[in-house]
């Protein structure tokens, strides 16, 4: 039996001194990729899925409009609403809002402004077409319907 009793004299503990380094590496990754929300979204956002997605080439040219039913129906009602920045706006204010967004850009890029519409799936087309009419009026004709890649079924 003495045969089996012989064991190497090495320590059996795993060195944990490099663990913080690994964690820090992960930490830095998430710190760098994190974009803290600037404004709270007040409408429901269940973004539809699609397959033919395109990436935007220049992020600075994008302004977001959020459309959907309010998250707090007891305060804001149940009708779908449009949110720009941190407040609800009516369709008539869109032209004004677009012009404010255009003012933030350089002069030679103003006509390339892209409006990203983040619309909840439950919304009806009526409000969206109203928004589109206003965007045409404001001469912001590039529209991106934000959506998530769906898994191809075929």
């Amino acid at each position: 039996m003495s045969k089996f009793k012989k064991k190497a004299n090495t320590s059996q503990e795993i060195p944990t001194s490099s663990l913080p380094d690994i964690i820090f590496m992960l930490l830095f990754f998430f710190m760098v990729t994190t974009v803290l929300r600037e404004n709270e979204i007040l409408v429901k956002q269940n973004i539809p899925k699609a397959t033919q997605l395109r990436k935007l080439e220049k992020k600075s040219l994008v302004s977001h409009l959020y459309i959907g039913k309010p998250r707090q129906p007891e305060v804001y009602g149940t009708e779908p609403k449009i949110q720009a920045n941190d407040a609800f706006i009516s369709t008539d204010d869109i032209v004004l809002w677009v012009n404010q967004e255009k003012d933030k850009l350089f002069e030679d890029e103003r006509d390339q402004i892209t409006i990203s519409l983040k619309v909840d799936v439950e919304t009806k087309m009526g409000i969206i077409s109203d928004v589109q009419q206003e965007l045409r009026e404001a001469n912001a004709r590039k529209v991106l319907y934000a959506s998530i890649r769906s898994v191809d079924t075929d």
Partner: protein
Amino acid sequence: MAKRSKREVGVNSAPMADIAFLLLIFFLVTTTIATNKGLMLQLPPKPDPNQPPPDINKNKRNIFKVLVNSQDRLLVEEEPLNDVRKLRKMVKEFVLNFGKPDQESIQLYNTLPNSLRRLTRKDPNSSDSPGEAVVSFKTDRGTSYEMYMAVLDELQGAYYEIYGDRVGISADEFRDLDRRDPDAKRKYEEAREGIPMAISIAEPSKVGE
């Protein structure tokens, strides 16, 4: 000189991992990786009040009509369609029909790869040439956004597949072409040459909301 004790003076670094974990979990939870992806669309310019709307005398055969009612039912070329996914093939066949091609579109046809030529049916009741073909998409105010996106996805998909096939890449690769790169830009323009993505979004009717 005071006598120093022989004890070790190193800081205990074991809890450092715990602190790092705590921070890590915080950032994991708050992270929303920004997704700026979606379906791109160019709206038509606003109508000029000084000019009357242009007369549209396109032949009916050159317009591919897609209607969606307030119940999310599809009507394609006057016939009901249940499966949205069939639209893509129909649009591709419509665009590449070459029913009555002129000199230019015959040249265009000759440049197409075989995979696209196979779709050509030369049906006199369908589009004359890709340059003439227009896809008209009309919804109702009561149509759901989900349906609108599903149809638009198929319509754009049909065009992207044609473009991709023309330059020998897949539709996915075509969409990801970076137009700042001159090589990719050339490819992009070569693929779209003569076949404009003519998807016209008509103003919705007002039945149900």
